[in-house]
């Protein structure tokens, strides 16, 4: 039997207007649709946020040099810090994880400064001619003891001093750590 279009049923190419009374259907469609859309990003987001919970293994003392390696006149010497480097799935023992400037002090002690500029993390140079340190990136300058030399230069704090321990009379052990760049406070990155 052939069907005839009736005035109550618009032709099929014009979609029927939703009924106002279909509140539950609308709510359910939004909730289910929204839920479906959330699953994949939520799964990804969890993995994406994973680095927030990782802690670095930095902060343990490492033997960096011996006292004989430091000039008696107090000139700093740059030394690599060799330790176990953990990079996600790789653990590599005895590789450079950073570098420090070591300096013999008049009282017989040793000062260790992290080579990373506290401004933005560049590798700082020691300049014998200027008797201090200079950052080759944005021109921060530091005195021999690591303090800020020129207050108008960009570094917010002096170079980061690291704890030093002399073991067995001559071995220099440094607790190597990195610190947040760009802030006045010295906050260890862990």
């Amino acid at each position: 039997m052939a069907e005839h279009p009736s005035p109550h049923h618009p032709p099929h190419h014009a979609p029927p207007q939703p009924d106002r009374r279909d509140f539950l259907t609308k709510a359910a469609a939004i909730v289910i649709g929204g839920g479906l859309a959330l699953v994949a990003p939520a799964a990804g987001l969890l993995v994406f946020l994973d680095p927030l919970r990782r802690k670095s293994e930095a902060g343990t003392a490492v033997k960096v040099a011996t006292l004989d390696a430091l000039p008696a006149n107090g000139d700093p010497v740059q030394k690599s810090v060799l330790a176990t480097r953990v990079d996600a799935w790789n653990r590599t023992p005895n590789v450079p994880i950073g570098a420090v400037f070591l300096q013999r002090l008049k009282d017989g002690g040793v000062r260790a400064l992290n080579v990373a500029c506290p401004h933005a993390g560049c590798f700082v140079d020691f300049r014998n001619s200027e008797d201090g340190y200079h950052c080759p990136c944005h021109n921060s300058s530091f005195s021999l003891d690591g303090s800020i030399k020129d207050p108008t230069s960009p570094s917010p704090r002096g170079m980061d001093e690291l704890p030093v321990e002399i073991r067995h009379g001559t071995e220099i052990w440094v607790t190597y750590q990195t610190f947040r760049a760009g802030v006045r406070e010295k906050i260890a990155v862990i």
Partner: protein
Amino acid sequence: MKNFLGWFDQRTGSKKLLHEALFENVPGGARWRYAWGSTLVFCFAVQVVTGLFLWMAYSPGAQTAWESVYYIQHEMWGGWFLRGLHHYTAQAMTVLLVFHLLQVVIDGAYKAPREINFWTGVVLLLLVLALSLTGYLLPWDQKGYWATRVATSILSITPVLGPALQRLVVGGSDYGHQTLTRFFALHAGVIPGGIIAFIVAHIYLFRRHGLTPKEPRRKPDSAFWPDQVFRDAVVCLAVLCVILFFIWRTHGAELDAPADPSAPFSAARPEWYFLFLFQLLKYFPGGTEIWGAMVVPGVLLLVLIGMPFLGQKPAGHKFNLGFLGALFAGVVVLTVLAVNEDNHNPDYLAAVQDAKHDAERVIELAQSPDGIPTTGAVSLLRNDPLTQGPKIFAKNCASCHRYDGGDGLGGTPKGAIAGSDLKGYASRAWLAGLLDPTKIDGPHYFGGTKLKSSKMVDFVKKDVAGFSADQKTQLAGVLAALSAEGGLRAQADLDRRDAAVIDQGRKSFGGIGCADCHQFHSTDPDATAPNLTGYGSHEWLVAFISNPAHPRFYGQDNDRMPLFGVTHQLSDQEIGLVADWLRGEWYVPASGKAGD
């Protein structure tokens, strides 16, 4: 064919779509100035295609990123061209974006009802800059590594969220595998996806509101096809020619030495179009960095976004033009200042030269028969005597010794020479100088040491000075024999040729008086001077540097030379590297380019 097209059109509406695309009205006729948008679409298409092919050869990982880029650049068919095309098209895109922005603002194409289209354009500008920033790290070379450290450090000063943001972008507290995987995902997935979405919106809105004609209109309206398409194609061709010129000039794109967090890199600079931001940071004293890094660029960006509203006000358009002009001029001035400062900074220029040498050397080593180990190419330079030897020498030896009058790195050490000059150490010429009565107590040998008044100097100045012709011939043989002990690479051919002379020289050692103090392939408990068996060989020199006061060498007569190995001033590896460098023992490619 016609039937098929008809069938296809009925089902897809392709004919209408094509017609809309090609016969868009161009008010006032086609003009060259309308081509900038098309050049950007062209460049983006080039980036997508070249990027996909690079992706097929690239491996993001701390031990594979540099290595795979090296492989693309130096080993794969046409890899240098593909990389060059991707590299320079990225630069062209930034320049073209600026042109496009200038043209849009000058022609007033940002005003109502085109505000949203203008904003999608600003977002596209930022996304393209983000592509550039993320792409810079991917080769994992020194330049990209240090520049990214700076960029992510700046991110960390964002109020409240900074440290967490930095950690998420870096993929942890330190730079490594996860930094690369994240930057790569951003560079090849997230950002291009965003760009495609915004380009679609941008072109849709452009078509919706139509082109903003440059007044006065010089010609009647015409269709996009063929006049404007032709002009667009010619401008794209010109852009491509410029890109090809740069690829040809630099043979692809630069690749520095592999990233090494323990190796200083004073040549670190961002890509040239970020130099203005780099320069700006220099003017903000400690603690105010956030103003230079975020507040000032943020305010400028807000003004840019606000242009459509400002443009509605009286004189607003003029303000916008003035603002954009001032911004552009400011960027140019800061860029020129940054370049100028670097060009007048000898330390920076020297660092650039060092970086260039390291980059060339690591490629020589990567192309050696040993190739790149699985630990990555960074170990190639760390274990290379030619690269490390001079650095170790300058830091530890040059306060007394010299190398060709300097510190090994081209510098001049402070203070007077207090040890021998070790250039050519253990070679026949060097030993001939040591046994020369006019030279032995000179500055190049024992002049600055306490050995200046020693039995050896007496022997040379008195006995050797009075040698007969026959004794002088014997001495030449002894020198050849002694020098051959080291097995120096530079003398290998000479030693082979003079095998008989060397053999005779070994026999003459005692005859001319050397055995009175030295041991040489013999045992003499009364010997008082260094044992010369194996003199100058790797083993001999390593043992000597480790402990010159050992009875095998100077014993109690050692002058001020530190016992580098015994006191652990230098590691075994460092001693080996400096010994090999002094002996001229490093990898030389078949073309014989490395070192001297």
